[in-house]
């Protein structure tokens, strides 16, 4: 366990002590407990670092980023987590009104250099690796290198990249991704409306819809697997059913469509009044959207909705989608009989709790199944 991270230490690094000092007996005990880290610096000198108290103890196989000059330390990769992702850039060419990771126009090219350096160290047993940002395709050629490196270093690992897909309006670019022939790469691309004007408004960028649509078609023509993502909020819900129909008719080739609840951080928090709808009140709209997709053979998943706010008909589509570090279950959940199946809430939901959060005293019976032989009469 060695190397890099850029999780900022909030209190200015005062927890970092005794960098580069010899380890005494007391410290040996801390080392064994995972509170002191031993590593080789660039000159190959053995150094030790005491970890900040709020940092999760590193485990064998984890990867950390340690910046001695800036006094920062944090995880780049945690072997035990199913939610590892490569954060490629903070820059983005869209500015979605509900963005949970508001973009910044900064020079952060070093991020991708670190990723390229780190990938050979990642455990080959990793089940899935995300690529996220910002907009990863802004890195151009470097992104191709990252995917190529993932293919070479992690041949067993599924890769899921979040992108707005606009770069793939260029057939050339779509071909570059397809030509890598990554064994298990899926691109998660947002389509927020079936109407250009409304999608462009939601992503705050004129012409984005046309670019994304062309991107999806180009990627499909190079057999790159695609997931479509739709975030459900006040601006997208009025045409959610029509958007589902549009996706199903025009992109029947997509691997899956994810209908995603709002995460109330970033712009979603500052624009909350223009976005918030109670999930328990748009259940019928979700049912219509799900049925437009599934009746055309398109797989649908519902993300970020606790089961108690969903109609039971939709439970089979709900998945536990919230990454472990921001996932919470609240007091009401403690006694709930379906807690194990439920994806819970975002930690950020304390800003506004959905109405209708309530425990089930027993797991509801599944919806009526069709018996093979029925003797009842109508």
């Amino acid at each position, binding site marked *: 366990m060695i190397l890099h991270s850029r999780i900022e230490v909030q209190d200015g690094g005062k927890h970092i002590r005794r960098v580069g000092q010899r380890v005494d007996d007391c410290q040996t005990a801390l080392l064994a407990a995972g509170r002191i880290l031993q590593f080789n610096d660039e000159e190959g000198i053995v150094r030790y670092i005491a970890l900040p108290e709020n940092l999760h103890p590193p485990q064998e196989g984890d990867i950390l980023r340690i910046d001695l000059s800036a006094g920062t330390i944090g995880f780049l990769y945690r072997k035990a987590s199913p939610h590892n992702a490569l954060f490629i850039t903070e820059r983005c060419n869209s500015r979605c009104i509900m963005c949970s990771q508001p973009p910044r126009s900064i020079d952060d090219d070093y991020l991708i250099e670190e990723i390229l350096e780190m990938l050979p160290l990642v455990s080959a047993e990793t089940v899935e690796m995300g690529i996220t940002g910002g907009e990863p395709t802004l890195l151009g050629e470097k992104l191709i290198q990252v995917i190529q490196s993932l293919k070479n270093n992690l041949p067993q690992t599924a890769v899921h990249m979040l992108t707005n897909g606009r770069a793939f309006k260029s057939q050339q670019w779509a071909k570059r991704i397809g030509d890598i022939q990554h064994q298990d790469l899926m691109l998660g691309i947002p389509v927020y409306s079936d109407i250009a004007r409304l999608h462009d408004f939601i992503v705050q960028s004129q012409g984005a819809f046309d670019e994304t649509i062309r991107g999806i078609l180009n990627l499909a023509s190079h057999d790159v697997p695609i997931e479509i993502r739709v975030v459900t909020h006040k601006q997208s819900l009025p045409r959610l059913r029509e958007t589902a129909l549009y996706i199903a008719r025009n992109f029947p080739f997509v691997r899956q469509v994810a209908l995603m609840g709002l995460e109330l951080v970033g712009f979603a928090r500052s624009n909350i009044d223009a976005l918030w709808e109670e999930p328990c009140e748009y259940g019928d709209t979700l049912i219509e959207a799900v049925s437009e997709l599934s009746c055309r053979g398109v797989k649908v998943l519902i993300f970020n909705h606790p089961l108690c706010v969903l109609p039971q008909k939709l439970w089979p589509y709900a998945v536990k989608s919230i990454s472990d570090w921001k996932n919470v279950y609240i007091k009401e959940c403690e006694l709930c009989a379906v807690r194990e199946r439920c994806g819970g809430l975002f930690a950020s939901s304390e800003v506004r709790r959905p109405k209708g959060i309530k425990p089930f005293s027993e797991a509801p019976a599944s919806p009526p199944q069709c018996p*093979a032989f029925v003797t009842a009469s109508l």
Partner: protein
Amino acid sequence: MNLNRTFLQPEKNSQPATLLPFRFVPLDELRYVAVNAGGEHIVTDRNAIESLIDGKLPVEHPQADDFEARHFLSREKTTIAMLASQIRTRLSGLPDFTGLHMFVVTLRCDHSCQYCQVSRVSEDRAAFDMTPETADAALAHVFKSPSPHIKIEFQGGETLLNFELIKYIIEKAMILGANRDIQFVIATNLGFIDEEIINYCRDKQVFFSVSLDGPAFLHDANRPRPGNDSHARVKNALHRVRNSLGVERVSALMTTTKLSLSYPKEIVDEYVSLGFDTIFLRPLSDYGFASRSRGKIGYQSNAFVDFFKVALDRVIKWNLKGTRIVEAYTHLLLRRILTSYPTGYVDLQSPSGMGIGALLYNYNGKVYTADEGRMLAEMGDDTFCIGHVNDDYGNLIHGSNLVPMLRESMVEAVPMCSDCAFNLYCGTDPLYHYRSQGDWVGHRPTSDFCFRNMEIIKHLICLLEDDRESREVLMSWMP
């Protein structure tokens, strides 16, 4: 809108919209239905269609966005490519060529059904059974088709009266088609089923397609046999076959006679009580014996459409109560209306599936473009015979009437069909029109085929549009 000040408000449409090709027909007294070039429909009214075509549809029209999203209007360059891809998907089954191959293993039968065109109550094997030599020659044609999925269906007569030949064909086909996905189906009344047949069919994954017209009084009236016990025999055999092969390996096929028309609910209920999860509400074919005895068992198309609607409603009610049963014709049409995925049903596509979707090898070695072709032949008209199993394969396809028939009967060219909004949903049936109207193009204003399909398609579109409960059931049958 309470957006943070740094965000832009929604724009007005900046690009002018281009009108795209579509077709339309009246749906009912008040409404029209319009279908775009890729097959996506919208229910609207004539005023909206007229304003759309005149370029005067107001942006605030409640369907303005829908017309754009469903490709009646376009502001994006991608629209053409998306429509093209929908049409390509719709036609994607064509290159596979013939997938369904029917073998008439015997004409002998123990039943003497009024509507049957071909069967003989006879003991004369030499005259009415297919020979192994004929089967060999037919099998050679089967595997000339490039289709990766081959379905071999055994037809009669009563097929089980010549089970030895069925076994012979299955054994040979499994060798010749070792690298293909082959499915075997035996069409039968199950009257002659025994343990040996059941065990063999279980081991070879054979499917059964059983004739079942409805409750006993109706089934037995439609299907006379000595003892008048056809229904009881089917029911008994059904139980044995399912126990050994599994419920899903037996499906049932019904024919609607004049008597059936009075019992739509009873027929559906019979299918439910016997545990079938599919029913195919099939009109009587206007051929052969069915044609001769038309006065007795035949009926007008509107009577069939009424029957169909009541029966479909009953099917939907069962689903709403929690019993899943699918009406096969509705399912087929819904797939064509709601998706671009190809469907294989021979009589509901353009070009017709005759020959290129299905071939029939008759007991005597003659090759027909469809099951009904040999029935017409029994009436003395061999128009749909495209040759003999001993002919060269290329000659069967190219040296016969087949290609002109397919070309001339395509809906894209047939008067009325070419302007019809439903021409991507419907299909062409050259044999039906030849039989009933004298030529394979036919005359749609007087065509029962056209009337029936128009009415049923309109009915389904209305159900999808107007009746939420029915729509949920219909969509749950998909894809």
